[in-house]
Every structure is written in C-alpha cells, then in structure tokens.
C-alpha cells in the first residue's frame, strides 16, 4: 500500500517535471512590466501560431526588465513607462508599442463630469471624501479599485502618484466587476481600461479632455502611460527576436493589441 502510494507520487512528480521543461530550440525572451502581461501574452501566442517560435515572458516589473536588457539577460525588455534619460544614455532604445489609457468612471447619475488629476489623486487618498467638495451631490465618495498586483491599478496609481496610499472601499478582481459596481452605486468612482468602458457608467473628462484613442495617442488625455519595448541601440537582435519585434510593431498586430484593451501606437 505504502509502496503503491510512493510509486504513484514519484510518477506524477516525474511527469510534471518532464512537461515543465519541454525543450524549445528557438525562443524570444521578454522580461519586464507586469502590466503588459495581457498584451504580450496575446501577441506571443499569435506569433507562435504563425512562426512556431515561442515567446517567453518574465513578469518582473519595468525597472527589472530594463535592467535585464542592459545585462543581456533577455531579448526585449518591457516597460510601462518612458525610458529615463540616464537609461537612454546607457545605450538603450525605447519603441512605444501601445498606450494604456485608463478611464475614470462614475455612476451615470453623478452630476460631476470633469476632474483633474490632482483632484482624482486627492479623492483616492481620502483627502476629499464627499462629492459636494468637487461640485456634486452631498454623498460620500465610494472608492472602487482593483486588487493588488493588477496592471490597471498599478497604472492608475503610478499616473496619479498614489501608490500604496489609496483608501479603497472595494478591491475587485475584474474590470467587469468594477464597472458593474460603479454602475449600481451613485456615490462610486472607479477606474477601468478605456476599451472596456460601457454605457452603464460615465467616463469622466480629465482636465477637460475626453478619453479616446486620439486624445490618448496625442497625449492630451493624461491618465495613460506608454507600453515601451526596450532594446539595446548598438546591438542587433537575434533573428527570431527581430522577427517578433517587427511582427508586434507591424499594423497586422494592431488588432491583437486592441483586443488586449490598449491603444496600438503604430
């Protein structure tokens, strides 16, 4: 009896180990921003179907991704922010793949329709607690956000500079939940990627600018950030990495990029 159990366990573990490291000859290694998980995942999948080359993605964060390119540990680094000058001086080059636009949403019955970034930050850090302070009804502001680790939350908090300071009333695990909740609570405010905003909620203008693909692309809508592909300026990419780079920056990839909820840059 004991023998059988141990035998079974060993077999299962062996099978797991073997499938875990299935050998692939050609692979493109990407490393970086956790927020780009969805878009790189979708692109990588489509690329693999077309060419048979696998794309690996290591979610470490923008800073770690940039460092990995610098040290040659991956082919393409992924950053959800523009490169800093000193990073450019170190011989790195950034190519914008897409823009991640985040809509600030409220209940359709809320009279407030415009806020600026500073006010949004004050609302989310709990400095402004009532809608009447920003010209709305006398009602407590209910802050709806996403769970820790979510790309949208990370994006929103880094743009509004409210990292780890947001006093959420609810942390929901999907964009759909955020929209549903904001749609059903007159005092709620939330954020969601622009592509998924529906009629059940009202997207605020930020500093007077309506969130749309155009305003995000030209930079006038400020609650957005670029998804940047980081490469070394003087080194050439491996053949498969170059193929992947060309593929994802081509127009053909735009549909997949839009499908992942972000605005393609090319």
């Amino acid at each position, binding site marked *: 009896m004991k023998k059988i159990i141990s035998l079974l366990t060993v077999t299962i573990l062996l099978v797991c180990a073997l499938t875990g490291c299935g050998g692939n000859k050609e692979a493109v290694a990407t490393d970086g921003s956790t927020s780009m998980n969805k878009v790189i995942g979708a692109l990588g999948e489509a690329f693999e179907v077309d060419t048979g080359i696998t794309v690996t993605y290591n979610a470490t964060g923008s800073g770690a991704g940039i460092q990995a390119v610098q040290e040659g540990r991956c082919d393409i680094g992924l950053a959800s922010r523009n490169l800093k000058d000193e990073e450019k001086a170190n011989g790195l080059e950034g190519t914008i793949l897409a823009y991640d636009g985040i809509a600030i949403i409220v209940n359709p019955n809320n009279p407030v329709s415009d806020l600026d970034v500073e006010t949004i930050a004050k609302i989310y850090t709990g400095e402004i607690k009532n809608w009447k302070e920003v010209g709305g009804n006398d009602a407590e502001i209910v802050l709806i956000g996403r769970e820790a680790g979510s790309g949208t939350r990370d994006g929103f908090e880094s743009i509004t500079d409210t990292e780890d300071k947001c006093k959420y*009333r*609810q942390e929901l695990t999907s964009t759909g939940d955020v929209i549903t*909740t904001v749609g059903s609570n007159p005092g709620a405010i939330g954020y969601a990627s622009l592509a998924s905003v529906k009629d059940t909620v009202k997207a605020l203008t930020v500093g007077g600018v309506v969130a749309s693909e155009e305003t995000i692309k030209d930079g006038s809508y400020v609650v957005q950030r670029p998804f940047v592909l980081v490469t070394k300026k003087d080194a050439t990419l491996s053949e498969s990495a170059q193929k992947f780079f060309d593929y994802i920056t081509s127009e053909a990839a735009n549909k997949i990029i839009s499908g992942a909820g972000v605005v393609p840059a090319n």
Partner: protein
Amino acid sequence: MKRNRLFENIVHGIFLILGLITVGCVLLITVYLIISGIPAIKEIGLFNFLFGKEWASTAAEPKYGILPFILTSVYGTAGAILIGVPIGFFAAVYLSKVANKKVRAVIEAAVNLLAGIPSVVYGLVGMLVLVPVIREIFNVPDGASLFAAIIVLAIMILPNIIKVSITALDAVPKEYEDASLALGATPTETFFKVSVPAAKSGIAAAVVLGVGRAIGEAMAVMMVAGNVANMPSLFESVRFLTTAVASEMAYSSPGSLQRNALFSIALVLFLFIMLINATLNFFLKRDKEK
C-alpha cells in the same frame, strides 16, 4: 471458474486503483500545501503572519499579517451559522415531521435546486441585488460588506443544513414518537423533546457541514465583500481567507514572497477545514456507535 476468479481479481484491482486516486490527491495536495506554505511563514515569522493586523503585499514595504482575514472568515462563518442554522433547522423539523407529502416534495425540490446553484450566481445576484439593497436600507455609502457576505453565505449553507438534518430526523424510530404521543405529549412536544434529541448528532453534523461550506466559499463572497484587507466590521469592506488567496494569485509572480504567503494563507485555511472535518467525523462516528 478460474477465469471468473481472474476477472474478479482484475475488477478488484481496478477498483483499488480508483479508490487510491482519491487518497493520492489528498496526499498530494496536503504535501504540496505544506511544502509551499512553510517557507513564507518562516520568512515572515509565525507570530507576525498569524497575528499581524496589516496586509499590504505589493507595497514598497510589504506587510504580511493575516489576522484580518482569519477574523473575517471566523466572523463571517459564525454570522452565516447564526442566521442559517435556525432557519435550516426549523425547516428540517417542519419538512420531516409536520409537512404533508406534497408540500414536502415541492420544498425539497426547491432545496435541492438551491444546492445546485453555482456560487458565482449567488455572487452575481448578491452584487446586483443584495449590495444595493443593503446600501439603501442601512444608509451606508456602499453595501459591499461583511454583512452582505454573511447573508449570501447563510443562504448558501441552507440546503446542506436542511438536507442533512432531514436525514437525521427521518431516521428517528417511529416507536419513540408513538410512545411519546401515547404518553400524552402534544406533537410539538414530541418533535422537540423526543425527535430532535434523538437526532442531535446528525443535526450537529449538519451544522458542521454548513461551517465547512461557509468557510471554504470564495467566489460568492469575493463579489459581495469588497475585498479590502480591513479588520472585520459589519458594514465595512472585508477580505476572507479564501478571497485573499483567490484575488492575488493571478498577479503574484512565481517564487515571490507574495505568492508564497498566499500558499501560507491556503495552508491556514486548510488546517481550519481539517479541524472542521475532524469535528464532523466525531459527530458522525458518535451517531453510528449509538
């Protein structure tokens, strides 16, 4: 004859293997949980982990205290039991002893249907109906709260409690009740002084089963509880042990302290469930020995 024996042996062997699959799964899960749950507890420190009041896994200075989750799970389950058990218990007494056959058939069918509704549906209805209603009635800014979770859980555990209690009450020998009635007790006296005490082990098992279902539920409570790691309070947003694991697992990177801490939470939850199971076995065993 010989071929028959061989066939019997083969079937016997197949059944043994099928039986062992379950045992294997339990062992695998237990071992895996312990192996992946221990490192984070070691790193954070058992006391800091279990009794830390703050959870901020992705902050610049991460904090991994799960006391809010433990208390929320305990309070939430207790609240669900407090509401669900009386309703379920009296419903079971009614169905088993008082209701006529037709009424019983209809209500039992409804109870079975309730048991079959997926938890995400409970969550959805809770989110769209219960949460706004709580906001209106209690005049709080947002209805997603421990209270909403308790209501949803109470409804979810009802079928378990009713079904197991009915089975226990049905099993009470009719002679007991007849004797009681013959001695001049009214039917109500008979139900509560004879039938229920005779079935008390089964009813206790029903309650424990309800506790198990409530403490292990994730999806439905995730949609109505708000999921902020606050210390529990009835009308505040709270996070359960289950939802703590479920909501952060998707984004935590493998091998990170965050991911390991989530496994540690799962381990704590697992120990809770083990404890509940042991209690259940205790009641069921006592029932059998009688």
